[in-house]
């Protein structure tokens, strides 16, 4: 497969592994946070952790859009679907995330709510056109990657004069989250999260560019390397981070040059700017309330704002007690340190969002990493 398999080449991986081993200082640890779930997924699926020295430790970040959505917003979506007789269009990942009392969209669907899984905002618009007598709500979630399509859908709906289309906007922003992670004091009973550098978002950065990370790197003195999602991207970026750390630098470097520029996609940025604006603050699962970290729909487009059209009731939303998703999203705990992991909480019966999404750290641990040692032993025995 062209343009993909080149970045999964095993012999190049071994060369990079040797370079990483040579560059790393054996007397210290390197704590590298991979921000995106896409990186976490690549690290586990391809066994990258096996190829780097033990003192290079990947700390899994909060970059899984499904995982960081607070339960209350999910409960609101369930309420919209169940009580307002709307067609709720959602990305597939969101379907199985448990809300308060384990109520997920998939369960609401079984109770009769009209919930449709879509692959793009264009699907939602098509459903809107085909159901002119019904209200259609698009459940918009995600980082800067999925934001421009939402903005375009709203502009398109306005141009077409669609009266039955609204967006439940939950888009969040990456740079404020990174700043929050390095800046936040440790939670009670937790050790401070140690991070020496960041593998920066790849697809997000194709939209916003590498520039927005520059203040974060400068102020908090943490190197950032924008890294692609293929396993060789992750390894090369790891090498770049180790070199920066060794040299005491804290620059923003771009490994993913085949996609990301310093300024990003200006057209996409303008479209987002036209339709959406900063929220004063937004709640993130795991990170708590983060100032200026999310977007809402501008007043000019309030006809397309589901939060304006459908009043949702105030509710006391609750995550499952002792689910460690929040600490895992902060990088403070590993999935295996959660009491529920693998016992009560499995992908078949997820207690928290991190076990649902393929980008969630718990799902990645479960799917690829569980009993990794045992897997290695079997492999050896078979050779």
């Amino acid at each position, binding site marked *: 497969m062209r343009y993909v398999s080149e970045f*999964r080449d095993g012999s190049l991986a071994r060369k990079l592994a040797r370079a990483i081993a040579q560059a790393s200082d054996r007397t210290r640890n390197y704590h590298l946070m991979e921000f995106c779930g*896409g990186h976490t997924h690549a690290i586990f699926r391809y*066994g990258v952790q*096996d*190829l780097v020295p033990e003192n290079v430790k990947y700390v899994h970040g909060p970059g899984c859009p499904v995982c960081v959505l607070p339960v209350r917003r999910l409960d609101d979506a369930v309420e919209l679907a169940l009580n307002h007789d709307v067609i709720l269009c959602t990305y597939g990942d969101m379907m*199985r995330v448990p809300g308060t009392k384990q109520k997920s969209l998939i369960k609401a669907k079984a109770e009769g709510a009209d919930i449709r899984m879509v*692959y793009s905002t264009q699907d939602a618009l098509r459903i809107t056109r085909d159901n002119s007598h019904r209200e259609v709500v698009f459940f918009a979630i995600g980082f800067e990657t*999925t934001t421009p399509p939402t903005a375009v859908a709203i502009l398109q709906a306005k141009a077409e004069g669609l009266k039955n289309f609204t967006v439940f906007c939950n888009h969040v922003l990456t740079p404020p989250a990174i700043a929050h992670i390095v800046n936040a004091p440790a939670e009670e009973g937790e050790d401070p999260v140690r991070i020496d550098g960041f593998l920066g978002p790849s697809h997000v950065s194709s939209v916003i560019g590498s520039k927005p990370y520059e203040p974060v790197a400068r102020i908090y003195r943490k190197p950032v390397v924008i890294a692609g999602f293929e396993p060789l991207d992750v390894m090369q970026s790891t090498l770049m981070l180790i070199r920066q750390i060794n040299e005491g630098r804290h620059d923003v470097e771009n490994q993913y040059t085949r996609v990301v520029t310093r300024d990003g996609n200006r057209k996409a940025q303008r479209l987002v700017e036209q339709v959406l604006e900063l929220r004063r603050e937004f709640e993130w699962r795991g990170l708590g309330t983060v100032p200026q970290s999310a977007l809402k729909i501008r007043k000019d487009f309030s006809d397309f704002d589901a939060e304006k059209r459908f009043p949702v009731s105030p509710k006391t939303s609750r995550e499952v007690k002792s689910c460690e998703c929040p600490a895992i999203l902060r990088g403070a705990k590993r999935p295996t340190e959660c009491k529920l992991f693998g016992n009560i909480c499995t992908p078949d019966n997820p207690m928290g969002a991190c076990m649902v999404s393929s980008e969630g750290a718990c799902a990645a641990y479960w799917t*690829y990493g569980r009993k990794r040692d045992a*897997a290695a032993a079997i492999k050896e025995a078979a050779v």
Partner: protein
Amino acid sequence: MNNTGKGQSFRTGTVDMTHGGGGRAMAVLIKDLFYRHLKNPVLDQAHDAAVFDIPPGRLVISTDAHVVSPLFFPGGDIGSLSVHGTLNDVAMAGAQPVSLTASFILEEGFPLADLERIVMSMAQASSQAGVPVVSGDTKVVEKGKGDGVFITTTGVGVLPEGVAISPGAAQAGQVVLLSGPIGDHGVAILSKRENLEFETEIRSDSAALHGLVENMISAVPDISVLRDPTRGGLATALNEIAHASGVGFVLQEKEIPVRPDVRAACELLGLDPLYVANEGKLICICEAADATRLLDIAHAHPLGREAARIGEVVEDGDRMVVMQTDFGGARVVDWLSGEQLPRIC
């Protein structure tokens, strides 16, 4: 007056409640559509129950409901699929299928032309396989209570003496063969889903495997396990076998055949081909010494040309399926949880 009759109305009419009512409309539908296309001596007896002779051996029986959406897809439709799916289930016991039954649940308003197309496709699949449909049933449900048409088929087969194929029979030291590239069926279906249409040449691999099985078993009667990796794909089928046999598997990623366009479509959709459905592939677990012989036999058959040896059975109390990746690491290939969902970021 209902719209069933002869000739013309099958092109323009739709299923209505009278087609399931037991009266004349139903009789006409059965005679002019089902009997006409599925014609064979046993069906022609027009009994409620089919009476037929069977060759000596143990009886094998399997039943399967088919609810595929869309009903028509590249490389097949619900009609051919409902024949192949059940024939393969019978064949995976090592048996040769001898007859089929079919039960139709039709939704009011379903176009008769589509029904005829489906029945003709069933008839073709059954005649190609050499296994007649000997009995059937039709029911009609109100509009909104079905999804066009559901078909349940039951297959009866005969197992030759000396064959003891079972999902619990895999043993450490044996090897895993796969009859061809994986993922074609699932990707062909996805490419035609209403909200996901994309241009592709990929066709479903839907096919009846009992001919291939017959050749393999006559050469090597003591094959331990046969399994068609349908829903949940290769990964799920191997996990089921690992569980039933109390063993582990070590697979070699580079040996598992996947067509480049299937791989590309999976990459695009965020799916893993290991978990995508097949309808014309089989997994065979056998002694290492028999592998080359079985592969030669498979390569000589149209449905096994790309057969490959993809891994080994190992001792493992945890019953894990592990894969050595092209990249150089090892990963656990776990059961699938629910449906594979698309990635969004």
